[in-house]
């Protein structure tokens, strides 16, 4: 029976990884439109073209900047609030958690026009860093829920002991809770980073200049000349996906812990 399982598993692995592998083949075969399915003369030409494109490099930088700032802001603000919710007696704890859940269920498109108007009024429209504000707000429910769950697992006695030693709540959070909940904080940070790196709707709506685009927008608008540049799109796709996949595999356990914490503990 075990070989049946292995066979099924193999099919599942091909299902999950196959499309990306095919894209990698296309990326090294600029003549793939000639009909052959496997590259006979693989080249890295498409990668060189993509990496020589200043707008694509700019998009990579924008995405890295926006995703990093969003992660720091969400984990920082979320961590403070989660600590207060998990360990300090906050009146109205249940309604606050319910409101955060409501935000995560909101269709993003329902908030696009007011956020567009607000960023325009603040002079942040068409500036990639302006995305950090909506991204942080949208990532907060996730950060808040996960961190509240991770902090709640730590014993109350720790908090009381730190207080006896004269730590303020903020010091207790910084020196006791964040280090002890390190793996949980890492899970949360990874999920927020991936969310911000992949977000498309707001990036598309709130930026218009090529120099302000993030990676998903750049890829969706990728065209050079009249012919669709399949090899270049494939190369760009592989370039922006590979770091994410390596990150995911390196932190596999942390990511799975973060993904499942919400659904299974609820």
């Amino acid at each position: 029976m075990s070989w049946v399982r292995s066979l099924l598993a193999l099919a599942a692995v091909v299902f999950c990884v196959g499309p990306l592998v095919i894209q990698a083949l296309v990326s090294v075969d600029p003549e793939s439109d000639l009909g052959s399915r496997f590259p006979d003369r693989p080249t890295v030409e498409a990668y060189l073209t993509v990496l020589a494109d200043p707008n694509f490099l700019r998009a990579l930088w924008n995405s890295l900047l926006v995703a990093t700032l969003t992660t720091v802001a969400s984990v920082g603000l979320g961590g403070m609030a989660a600590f207060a919710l998990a360990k300090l007696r906050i009146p109205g704890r249940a309604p606050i958690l319910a409101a955060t859940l409501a935000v995560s269920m909101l269709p993003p498109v329902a908030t696009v026009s007011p956020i567009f108007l607000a960023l325009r009024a603040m002079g942040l429209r068409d500036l990639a860093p302006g995305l950090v504000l909506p991204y942080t707000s949208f990532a907060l429910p996730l950060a808040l829920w996960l961190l509240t769950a991770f902090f709640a697992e730590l014993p109350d006695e720790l908090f009381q002991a730190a207080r006896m030693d004269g730590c303020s709540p903020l010091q207790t959070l910084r020196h006791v809770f964040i280090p002890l909940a390190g793996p949980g904080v890492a899970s949360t940070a990874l999920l927020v980073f991936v969310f911000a790196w992949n977000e498309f709707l707001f990036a598309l709506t709130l930026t218009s200049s090529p120099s302000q685009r993030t990676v998903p927008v750049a890829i969706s608008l990728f065209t050079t000349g009249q012919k669709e540049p399949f090899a270049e799109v494939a190369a760009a796709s592989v370039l922006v996906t590979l770091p994410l996949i390596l990150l995911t595999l390196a932190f596999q356990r942390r990511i799975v812990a973060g993904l499942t914490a919400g659904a299974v503990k609820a």
Partner: protein
Amino acid sequence: MTGATSERLQRWGLMVPALGALAFVLIYPLLTSLWLSLHRFILVFDERKFVGVDQYAFLLTDARFWSALGNTVYFTAVALCLEVVIGLGLAMLMNQPFRGQGLLRAAVLVPWAIPTVVSAKLWAWLFHPELGWLVPEGANWLGSPTQAMHAAITVDVWKTSPFVALLLLAGLQGISEDVYQAARLDGASALRIFRSITLPMLAPVLGVTALMRALDAFRVFDAIYVLTEGGPANTTETLSIYTYKTLMRAGDFGYGSTLAIATFICAALLTALGAGLMNRRRR
């Protein structure tokens, strides 16, 4: 300042930034959208005129809105069913010991980690009429009014079934091995064990997962926008796509906001329906 007051200030000081950020994406946009939906407001003219509920009256007779709602419901229902079935199958497979289990558990993270825009591009290639690996020679699925929606559903199912599988796997791992052993001792068949033990004990996790996925599928935007932009002939146009086009392409912030509020109400109804079903089961 006394110690107690400073304590209370610190406590709220920790909460206020997060609450402010949440208000920025919850209360402010909803109130603004509601207000805009009562106005005629074309962005380029920057001119607002109060029109009351006129745009809501128009919405009810707008065939394109009803078609977008129908497309969204169809997309959500079909994608959700496939994702739960495939996700459950994958989860049960991953829950068994076999050679290569680690490889599979790593591989399911790949579609999850790939940006949706990129996954739509991967599949657009596989569906390409001349070059695609998946379509019969010359078949143009993305250009076909009957097939384009199914192509979009395929992308969503590929991208999110593994995520469903991971959540369900965590649920399966929470079921004690003793229960299975007892059932086997009593001579229960595999099918019987699945129906009488696995499914009922997995039900809470299954419910939460399905609700999360349903809400996500209901607001689908990225995959469809990249694959077809709602075409051909609006057959893949969902509520999010129609709203986006009205807001950002036509620049009609008035009627666009009406559509945004309608989308919000539909999503809220879906949430209430899902939560209601889950509560009834629990009782």
